[in-house]
């Protein structure tokens, strides 16, 4: 059998036990530390025990003699018709933070938003969300947010701020000065109107859109190739062969959620489907996308251009087009080109490089392959990145030359993520009027004169057009928590426009967008319907998707060979992206899908590099002026190291401050585009250590056959390929116990390993739904992370070029559960619907169940994580606790908890069926993880119903259970991973490997 491993240490030394020893003492001492501040050093003593006992008895008697406090019940004065106290309401809205888009439903309980769900009516995100969208509800209750307008850091009021700003703006207009409006990409048609109105009032206004992670290279290349300065929509569901160069389209690239949905659709093998797409990924950093690929080839980022040019040359030669002068690439691409040619119109080549030439070559390759109009759609281009890097450079030189008199920052933070922020900061003094519309403190807004905080998006009206022709609306779901004002209203007010943004928005929809549809005859009805649906898609015109005309003269410049020096690659993480949500503790504690580390960024180095330079995990090194800890990452391309952007924020809130280092200053600008890598870097040891919260060696399954995989070829021969031991386990199923029978429901979950990309959305969805606490870096390091669902990541084969397998693991709800019969107080037991339940109030914290659970899915509350200053995250403030789900108990210290299959959702849907006098429908009940999963990898349903989707998946020959030979009878089934390669066990590196 193939060997799977979770960390290079495990591969080399067997199991990584060092960490265990380190924390063993800690676990022992944590029992009684009520009186000790410096817990780990002190041991539990008899004295402490007596103190604790005395205290408890006194406390108990005091509490017992107290009267119960009087509770008040205050009804509404006039109850709104739609509100029923205790019942949730869902409002359709839109999330767009400048990088990520999602059409959402906001679950609101008694007037406060508590959870984000996907909007199933949306043609783009189709009811699915990412981890960042899931976590966005918490940022509403961020204590760090601005509470009201400020002038030079001093609290003020709106009238005064408005009066001063309008006076200054008018003065600039009078002298004919220039005002810069620096925004992130704006996809809201109504906001564009507001900006236009502002520009009309102040003709000297220059509007610059700035994307820190830029797609300018692609925009310019498309302009050159087709005359269209747009980003097309990529249709991964139509592509049978996907070749990606560093485009992390399942994690961070453009619109990962719809891409993941489309990608997974074409890789499912259900309902007798016998083909799936093939995915080849060239990249230097091991990304979510790379770990899902059938073939991943680690290369230097700078070498990708050479490979692309080589592919181009082979295709151009056949087409008789002009060739590019390029050195021969290290990777032999002949087989790949042959394969691409075999998939004309059904292939897709994408590149994540922000480089005009590379993108031009990629465009031309796709054009040769006739992919335009098929897998690449220019009819419905993406609007979500519009910023040109040159505009930003121009702006800065204009500011430096004193040409700009006023600047307004909206949804941008250049003093954090602009590469030369000192230059920006110094030149800013020359601007007489500086206004920031930022919702919460950031590096830029702290430097400006006027802070006019915008509402949080859940308090705002807005609209969006992320893809041409697909519109969506955002509506406020709660009264503004602070004295903030919607940014658009501020701009309208300063333009002297009396209109409110809400009215302008409604007018725009009722007048402009109403014309584009024929479903509603009345414009008011159209508005109300759109508001209710949250989305509105222009009816397709019926025309076929055409390929745009190629207009570039193919005049490519010569490409030089790659230097041998070490290359530092900067990348975005799935959790934090460009760092704008860094003050969100949920996202900070989300283990990275690949490295499984959280609360830090670190320098990824390959195992070979680490060995050569005698580096170990957590060694602090100096690179390009930054001091960062090292993390040994298998799959990191030879000759490269990588560092995540989005960390190292300053003065933005207690969570974000001082976590990680800021890598943005390392970004450079070359040929009009920003470059996210630098060559010829040196790594030098500092001799220091910086602890990392690595979760990867947690919950190890001791090397047993947990993940099963096969190749498409073998699967087609035998659907049970790779899953042979399942049949054996089934055969050996004998038990002394009576067979458990379920009349009525028997809940189960099926997980398709072929679909899971490990994006982590389920983890955050679960955290939001089930009030899971954030415990901080120190505790995570002690392997106490509280997430009820985790995604295990296994590597196999060569550490320099590993294959990656992802496996979500939550409570398996075993019908023969080992945890149940060891509980001395029967706090955990089986329900008659197959759920393994925990009664928190009955639990006395012996942790026997944790020890006896072979899946390591039970979590222990080592501390009281609510209202505890030692865990100063969202649950430590009244504001932060508003996000808690009132249907789920907040667990006390000393009890065990775990996945419940979202029993509150099961009960809710069952009750709805009873009230409506109808049977439950299959798929009606969706636990939070299932609801959000962008790839539909998780399926939940009733195993008693033979026709339910989950039952059909359980009957699949790919289905198996974790450690099934233990006869625990889990209610969670896994479908083997199938890779689109010839044979997993044979040698198949020859077609596209190192030449």
């Amino acid at each position, binding site marked *: 059998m193939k060997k799977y491993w979770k960390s290079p240490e495990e591969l080399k030394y067997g199991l990584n036990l060092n960490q265990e020893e380190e924390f063993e003492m800690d676990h022992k001492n944590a029992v009684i530390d009520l009186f000790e501040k410096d817990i780990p050093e002190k041991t539990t003593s008899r004295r402490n025990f007596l103190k604790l006992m005395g205290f408890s008895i006194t406390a108990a008697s005091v509490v017992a003699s107290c009267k119960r406090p009087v509770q*008040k*019940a205050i*009804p509404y004065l006039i109850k709104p018709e739609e509100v029923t*106290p205790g019942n949730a309401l869902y409002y359709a809205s839109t999330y767009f933070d400048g990088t990520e888009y999602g059409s959402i439903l906001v679950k609101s309980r008694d007037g406060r938003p508590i959870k984000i769900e996907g909007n199933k009516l949306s043609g783009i995100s189709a009811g699915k969300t990412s981890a960042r969208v899931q976590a966005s509800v918490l940022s509403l209750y961020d204590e760090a947010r601005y509470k009201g307008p400020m002038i030079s850091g001093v609290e003020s009021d709106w009238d005064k701020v408005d009066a001063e700003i309008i006076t200054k703006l008018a003065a600039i207009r009078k002298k004919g000065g220039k005002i810069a409006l620096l925004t992130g990409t704006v996809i809201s048609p109504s906001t564009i109107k507001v900006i236009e109105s502002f520009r009309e009032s102040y003709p000297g206004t220059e509007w610059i859109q700035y994307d820190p992670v830029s797609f300018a290279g692609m925009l310019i290349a498309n302009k050159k190739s087709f005359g269209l300065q747009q980003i097309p929509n990529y249709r991964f569901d139509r592509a049978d062969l996907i070749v990606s160069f560093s485009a992390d389209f399942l994690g961070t690239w453009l619109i990962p959620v719809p891409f993941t949905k489309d990608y997974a659709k074409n890789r499912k093998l259900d309902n007798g489907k016998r083909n799936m797409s093939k995915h080849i990924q060239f990249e230097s950093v091991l990304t979510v996308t790379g770990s899902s690929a059938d073939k991943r080839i680690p290369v230097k980022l700078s070498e990708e251009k050479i490979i692309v040019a080589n592919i181009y040359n082979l295709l151009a030669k056949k087409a008789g087009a002009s060739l590019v002068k390029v050195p021969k690439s290290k990777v032999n691409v002949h087989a790949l080109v042959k394969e691409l040619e075999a998939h004309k119109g059904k292939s897709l080549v994408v590149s994540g490089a922000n480089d005009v030439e590379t993108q031009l070559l990629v465009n031309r390759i796709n054009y040769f392959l006739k992919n335009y109009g098929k897998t690449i759609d220019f009819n419905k281009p993406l609007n979500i990145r519009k910023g040109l890097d040159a505009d930003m450079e121009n702006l800065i030189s204009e500011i430096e030359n004193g040409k700009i008199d006023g600047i307004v920052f909206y949804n941008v933070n250049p003093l954090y993520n602009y590469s030369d922020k000192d230059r920006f900061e110094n030149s800013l003094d020359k601007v007489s009027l500086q206004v920031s519309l930022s919702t919460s403190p950031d590096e830029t807004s702290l430097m400006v004169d006027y802070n006019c905080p915008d509402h949080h998006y859940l308090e705002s009206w807005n609209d969006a057009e992320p893809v041409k022709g697909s519109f969506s609306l955002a509506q406020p779901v709660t009264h503004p928590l602070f004295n903030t004002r919607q940014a658009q209203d501020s701009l309208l007010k300063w333009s002297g426009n009396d209109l409110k943004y809400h009215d302008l928005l409604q007018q725009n929809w009722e007048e402009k967008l109403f014309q584009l549809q024929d479903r509603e005859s009345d414009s008011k009805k159209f508005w109300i319907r759109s508001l209710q649906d949250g989305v509105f898609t222009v009816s397709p015109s019926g025309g076929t998707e055409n390929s745009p005309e190629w207009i570039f003269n193919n005049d490519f410049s010569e490409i030089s060979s790659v230097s041998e020096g070490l290359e530092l690659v900067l990348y975005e993480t799935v959790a934090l992206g460009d760092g704008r949500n860094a003050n969100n503790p949920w996202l900070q504690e989300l283990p990275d899908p690949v490295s499984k580390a959280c609360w830090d960024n670190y320098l990824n180095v390959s195992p070979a590099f680490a060995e050569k330079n005698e580096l170990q995990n957590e060694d602090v090194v100096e690179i390009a002026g930054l001091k960062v800890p090292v993390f040994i990452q298998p799959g990191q391309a030879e000759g490269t190291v990588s560092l995540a952007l989005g960390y190292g924020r300053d003065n933005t809130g207690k969570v974000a401050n001082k976590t990680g280092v800021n890598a943005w200053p390392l970004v450079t600008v070359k040929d009009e585009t920003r470059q996210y890598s630098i060559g010829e870097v040196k790594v030098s040891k500092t001799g220091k250590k910086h602890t990392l919260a690595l979760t990867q060696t947690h919950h190890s399954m001791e090397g047993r056959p947990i993940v099963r995989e096969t190749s498409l070829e073998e699967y087609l021969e035998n659907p049970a390929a790779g899953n042979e031991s399942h049949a054996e386990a089934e055969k050996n199923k004998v038990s002394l116990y009576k067979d458990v029978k379920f009349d009525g429901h028997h809940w189960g979950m099926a997980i398709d390993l072929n679909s899971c990309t490990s994006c982590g959305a389920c983890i955050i969805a679960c955290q939001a739904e089930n009030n899971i606490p954030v415990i901080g870096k120190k505790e995570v390091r002690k392997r106490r992370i509280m997430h009820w669902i985790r995604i295990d990541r296994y590597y196999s084969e060569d550490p320099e070029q590993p294959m990656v397998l992802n496996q979500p693991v939550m409570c398996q709800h075993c019908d023969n559960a080992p945890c149940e019969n060891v509980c001395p107080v029967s706090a955990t*037991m089986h329900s008659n619907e197959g759920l393994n339940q925990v009664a928190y109030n009955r639990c006395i914290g012996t942790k026997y169940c944790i020890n006896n659970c072979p899946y390591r899915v039970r979590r222990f509350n080592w501390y009281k994580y609510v209202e505890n200053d030692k865990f100063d995250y969202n649950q430590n403030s009244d504001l932060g606790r508003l996000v808690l789900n009132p249907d789920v108990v907040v667990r006390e210290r000393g009890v065990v908890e775990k996945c419940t299959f979202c029993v509150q959702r099961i009960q809710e849907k069952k*009750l709805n069926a009873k*009230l409506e006098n109808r*049977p439950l429908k299959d798929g009606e009940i969706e636990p939070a993880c299932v609801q959000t999963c962008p790839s539909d990898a998780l399926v939940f349903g009733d195993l008693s119903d033979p026709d339910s989707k989950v039952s059909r998946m359980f009957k699949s020959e790919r289905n198996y259970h974790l450690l099934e030979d233990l006869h625990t009878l889990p209610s969670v089934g896994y479908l083997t991973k199938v890779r689109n390669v010839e044979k997993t066990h044979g040698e198949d590196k020859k077609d596209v490997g190192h030449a």
Partner: protein
Amino acid sequence: MNNCFVDQFRKQTFRVVMLVLFLMYLPVGVFGSFSNKKEGKSEGSKKELTGDVKRGQKIFFGLAELGEGAPVCANCHNTTEIDSLNWYPSSYEIGSKFKKKGLMAFKKAVLSPSTPTMKKVHAKLTLTDQDVTDVKAYLDQVAVDGLTPKKPVVKNALLMISLTIIIIIALVDAFFTWKVKFKIIHLVVILLAVAGQVKLVSHAAIALGRSKDYSPDQPIKFSHKVHANQNQIDCLYCHPSAEYGKNAGIPSVNVCMNCHILVAEGQISGKYEIDKVKAAYTNKKPIEWIRVHNLPDHVYFNHSQHVGAGKLDCTECHGDVKDMHLIKQVEDLSMGWCINCHRTKEVRFTDNKYYGDYKQLHEDLKSGKIKKVTVEDIGGTDCMKCHY
């Protein structure tokens, strides 16, 4: 060594003595400051008003002249906390209502009332201006101090102490006085007394955190008997979400006003209580009711499951609300009580199509193997039906 120990001992003794002294003086200090405060306040109010609080109190309790055949104020307007429903406003309520209003308004309300009940009762009151001023002064004082608290019942404590005395007597007699010759009697007496104490303690312990018979005073003297019994208003008229929502809900003021926009005066309560509802509506201040039925946070309870799906009658858990003036919790709402019902209550198994999924139970029901399907049969006693 020894010296050190003695020193230590002295220090300890000194500390203990100081602590005892501190504890002894603590109440004096605290109460001293309270009484000071009180005096200060009444002095302050004296300056504003010329009424005599002491005399006003005498008049209120009928110890001074009120006129021939005139009722004693305190007979109707209670001055102590009570647990029954007094339809007449308490002295505290009157005091609070008129505290900010002038003397003239108070005099008018007392001597020339507008409602028939008051007209009848107050008819024989003859009060001079000085009397009215004094009574008002007294009531102002009550508005500050509140009602006199009820004295706690010490029945159980007395019982406990007497049982302890019995035990001590029995022990003394057994070892020293030997009045009773047969030791077995001592043993039986001691055992019985200890058993009695255990029973007392265990009952008290079980009742901890439960609030059976809880029936607090509400801000408005709302009578369920008047509304649900005399006026035959259905429970669900005011608590509609019991049928479809998690909470039965307390009606919002606009629901009250559906009727009370017309009904301005009650048969028993007169205008006084209904005016409070109207005031809430016009002042836009919701009424702060005292919650009676209150489950702990770790229990999930959904009304619609029981009323909407289970078609339970409200009285099964809430008792005969129709006969209660003041709402009272009749069941202890303990887990045992819940479970008992879940074990015996029949599910509407054949009526509701949802239960069609339970095929085996349907077969058993058809074949006569079981007579009915209880909540427990379909998992109604599982932990995670109520705790999650």
